[in-house]
């Protein structure tokens, strides 16, 4: 095509003057200028505080932009080993919650649920809480008061939650919302390997030849991990995705197995069956490094592809293809997430994947191994130091006498004072309903949205005589409480988290908390003081807690002793176990062929498939499965307040196959044995015809968890979120999505679009280009 004669004029109209480039740059489009780290600091008098994202288990490095007044006002990507500048939309928008108008800035209190909240002094809120704890425990025993923590807390705080429950409250009832996350994988890893963590770092994904991703919507739930997946594919690795939906990752997979929810272990057993049939097992490895192989082999013989194909609703050929691709690859890896873990046989599903890796010898080598992808930022670290009902710091068992003695010595209490194991999060709610637990403190969790079977959860909480909640926004659960303590965000305190690789990373304080807000550590220590255990909780800051945590973990499998704040700042993260301050950490496990069992072997476990707990019948013929969207995090208490994320995904939907005859956007009623709700239909061929998908980040009346079943895995006690029986019907209209409850005196949603500056186009960038225009 002939060039437009005006083009040349237009080009020369705007000469670029290189002398206008800032000092230190080599040219306007040259990438070799000022290092990213110094840019804002140099130009605008800002400071960039290195820290990590508060959300998922990838724990991307980021800088928080802090203005001259000491306030967080933006984010800048950080070239950290984990994410190499990458961020997902949640990470980019996370900073907006720090100075969000919905922040709670004074304790809220009411003496009964019939009253409205009123803002009170810290002393009044703390004293009332302690008087209620004392009243309930004197009347009904120490175990009548429970504590529920969270896996988004720093490890220092999760350590304090466990210690506070057992030493200050003297109650056995402590658990955490990581119970809803990766406990199935943790249980399986502990059974098979004697250690509860992923075997390989993310960077090993780049080295693998075959990547199997089971039950993980990596593109939406862990977007930054995708760069490792695509990196492996660039090298020619094959990709196998097991998921009932064609997710963004599944779309480009070499083999996408769209199996029916709740049939994972039958599928993996059949894959192992084919591997054995075709002589693709690594018998030398098995003989040297595994126990239980003969029993596993005998069990999977009953799962030929023809049988599994019927159970799973996938072609038998696919099972054979997966077996060949995984077993023949020189190096293969398996990563899984909630898709196979949120089941009444979640532990067994994970064990069936471990059996695959073990039988093919794909363990403990660069590019070969297994891992679970953590949903919550500190899902890994959150259970390592005693927040889980059955665990003491360092991953010690609360049932083990030697472990109990060790911890009592560190805590300075008698062993008789240390309570036994408690019950899991869902079981505690059942106990609340039965009035066995009459008082509860919740820290950093929102069970009204995140636990299954909402009616049971609501009834349990309503039955409590006293309920206090720590949070920085008034969550749906906090709105049910008697006392709400306003606490800090992740940007207002120091602390560590362990990501999905078990890499401990340090979060740094970027701003002072708003007036009236205290750290969770301070609140727990104040409550402990008022409960008469102040001498055991004399912590001034996170560092002091971390130093006690290090000592409490020394010598255990989860050894943090060699990890210090200084080392974390120097290295960008250390993977435990790290027993001494000159130890480099352990990014890859089992390189010496030894596991953490006394015999050093992998203990393979027999897995038999059984159907999901909610049976299908004529009334409920379809499978309901739940999951996340990329814009929202867990119960949505944080992300449903951030304008950009609300705009991206304003409401939930029911994803269904076109074969049901619905139009896109049409109201569709999803009915389970727990209730029914109406959602707009998202009609797509990317889901199985017998399956419905609903994202779970919203409260009633569009709460996926009002429909899901509170059946638990018998070992991990994780709820079966990923499958229950349902039917779909035409509906008249869609119920409105409720706005998050808002604290009194604060600006209401949705006018909280936060910290946006002048929406008009600024002139500065053009200024450099246009200065010589005329």
């Amino acid at each position, binding site marked *: *095509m002939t*060039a*437009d004669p*005006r*083009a040349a004029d*237009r*080009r020369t*109209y*705007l000469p670029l003057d290189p002398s206008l*480039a*800032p000092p230190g*740059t080599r040219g*306007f*489009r*040259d*990438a070799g*200028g*000022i290092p*990213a780290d110094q*840019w804002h600091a140099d*130009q605008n008098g800002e400071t960039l505080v290195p820290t990590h994202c508060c959300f998922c288990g990838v724990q991307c490095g980021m800088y928080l932009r802090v203005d001259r007044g000491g306030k967080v006002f*933006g984010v800048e*990507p950080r070239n950290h080993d984990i*994410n190499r500048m990458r*961020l*997902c*939309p949640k*990470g*980019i928008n996370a900073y907006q919650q720090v100075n969000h108008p919905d922040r709670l800035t004074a304790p809220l209190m009411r003496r009964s649920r019939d009253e409205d909240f009123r803002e009170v002094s810290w002393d009044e809120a703390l004293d009332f809480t302690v008087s209620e704890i004392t009243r309930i425990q004197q009347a009904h025993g120490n175990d009548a008061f429970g504590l529920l923590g969270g896996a988004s807390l720093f490890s220092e705080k999760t350590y304090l939650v466990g210690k506070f429950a057992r030493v200050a409250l003297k109650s056995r009832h402590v658990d955490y919302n990581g119970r809803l996350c990766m406990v199935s994988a943790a249980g399986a890893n502990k059974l098979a390997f004697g250690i509860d963590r992923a075997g390989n770092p993310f960077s090993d994904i780049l080295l693998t030849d075959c990547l199997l991703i089971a039950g993980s919507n990596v*593109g*939406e739930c862990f*977007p*930054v991990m995708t*760069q490792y997946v*695509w990196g492996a594919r*660039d090298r020619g690795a094959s990709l196998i995705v097991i998921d009932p939906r*064609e*997710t*963004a*990752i599944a*779309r480009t997979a070499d083999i996408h197995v769209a199996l029916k929810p709740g049939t994972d272990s039958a599928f993996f057993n059949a894959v192992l069956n084919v591997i054995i049939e075709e002589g693709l097992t690594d018998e030398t490895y098995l003989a040297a490094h595994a126990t239980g192989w003969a029993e596993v082999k005998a069990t999977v013989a009953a799962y030929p592809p023809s049988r599994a194909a019927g159970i799973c609703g996938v072609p038998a050929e696919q099972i054979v293809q997966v077996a060949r691709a995984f077993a023949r690859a020189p190096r293969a890896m398996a990563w899984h997430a909630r898709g196979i873990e949120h089941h009444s046989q979640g532990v067994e599903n994970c064990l069936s994947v471990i059996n695959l890796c073990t039988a093919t010898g794909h363990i403990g080598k660069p590019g070969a191994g297994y891992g679970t992808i953590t949903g919550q930022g500190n899902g890994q670290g959150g259970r390592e130091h005693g927040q889980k009902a059955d665990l003491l710091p360092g991953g010690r068992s609360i049932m083990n006498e030697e472990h109990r003695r060790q911890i009592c010595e560190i805590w300075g209490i008698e062993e008789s004072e240390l309570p036994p194991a408690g019950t899991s999060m869902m079981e505690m709610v059942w106990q609340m309903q039965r009035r066995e637990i009459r008082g509860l403190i919740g820290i950093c969790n929102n069970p009204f949205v995140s636990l299954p079977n909402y009616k049971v959860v609501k009834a349990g909480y309503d039955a409590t005589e006293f309920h206090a909640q720590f949070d920085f926004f008034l969550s749906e659960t906090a709105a049910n409480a008697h006392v709400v303590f306003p606490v800090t965000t992740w940007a207002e305190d120091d602390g560590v988290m362990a990501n999905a690789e078990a890499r401990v990373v340090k979060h740094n304080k970027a701003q002072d908390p708003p007036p009236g807000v205290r750290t969770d550590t301070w609140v727990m220590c104040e409550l402990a003081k008022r409960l008469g255990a102040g001498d055991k909780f004399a912590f001034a800051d996170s560092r002091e807690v971390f130093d006690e945590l290090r000592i409490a973990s020394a010598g255990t499998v989860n050894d943090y002793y060699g990890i210090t704040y200084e080392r974390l700042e120097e290295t960008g993260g250390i993977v435990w176990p790290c027993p001494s301050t000159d130890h480099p950490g352990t990014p890859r496990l089992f390189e010496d062929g030894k596991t953490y069992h006394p015999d050093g072997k992998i203990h393979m476990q027999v897995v038999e498939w059984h159907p999901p707990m909610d049976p299908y019948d004529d009334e409920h013929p379809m499978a309901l499965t739940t999951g996340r969207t*990329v*814009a929202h995090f867990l119960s949505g208490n944080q992300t449903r307040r951030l304008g*950009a994320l609300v705009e*991206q995904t304003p409401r939930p939907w029911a994803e269904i196959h076109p074969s049901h005859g619905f139009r896109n956007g049409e109201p569709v009623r999803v009915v389970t044995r727990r209730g029914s709700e109406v959602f707009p239909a998202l*009609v797509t*061929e*990317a889901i199985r015809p017998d399956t419905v998908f609903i994202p779970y980040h919203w409260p009633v009346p569009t709460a996926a968890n009002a429909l899901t079943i509170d059946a638990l895995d018998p070992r991990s006690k994780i709820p079966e979120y990923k499958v229950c029986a349902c039917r779909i019907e035409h509906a008249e209209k869609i119920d409105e999505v409720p706005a998050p409850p808002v604290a009194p005196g604060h600006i209401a949603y949705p006018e909280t679009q936060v910290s946006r500056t*002048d*929406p*008009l*186009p*600024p002139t*500065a*960038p*053009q200024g*450099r*280009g*246009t200065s010589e*225009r005329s």
Partner: protein
Amino acid sequence: MMGRTIFIDPGRCIGCQACVSACRECDSHRGKSMIHLDYTDEGRSVASLPTVCMHCEDPVAPCAEVCPADAILVTADGVVQQADTTRCIGCANCVNACPFGVPKIDLQAKLQLKCNLCYDRTAYGLAPMCATVCPTGALFYGTLEELQAERPGVQVADSFVFGESEVRTGVAMVVPADRVQWPVPGGLPVVEINGKDVRR
């Protein structure tokens, strides 16, 4: 061919909209995103595609060409800037002219807004915000050599044909290596205008 620029690889896009959020964080148009995320086969697939300004080169960017106020300026290094606020009259001619559907009009301010390749960042040696954060590399900022070093065998195109018009762009797009053809078909061919078959 192109120097340091954005390469769009739809095959890698996971539709997460990190680019959209990142674009909102740009200091030059904070609070508004200049990126479109399109679902190319909705109802059948989750395939998605981010669209940034393609910074058309030859002929001069259509948006700049039709601007009656001469508000859209092109820098010597080929960056098509967003409309100069002192000149823009908010007429939306640029919106109609752009074959990629990029410019937006802020109706309240009566001003045009579009991607300016993060001039505020690239001027300081940083990559544009969208390409910096993109978790998958669906938006890549660098030279063709850098892209090909990272992704062996990758093929790109920077010429697109719309009907009988061909547009060469400063931003390039990754195309399937086994189906490389230039120019790449862009959009639907124009067949009929005001009831008349314009192919004749």
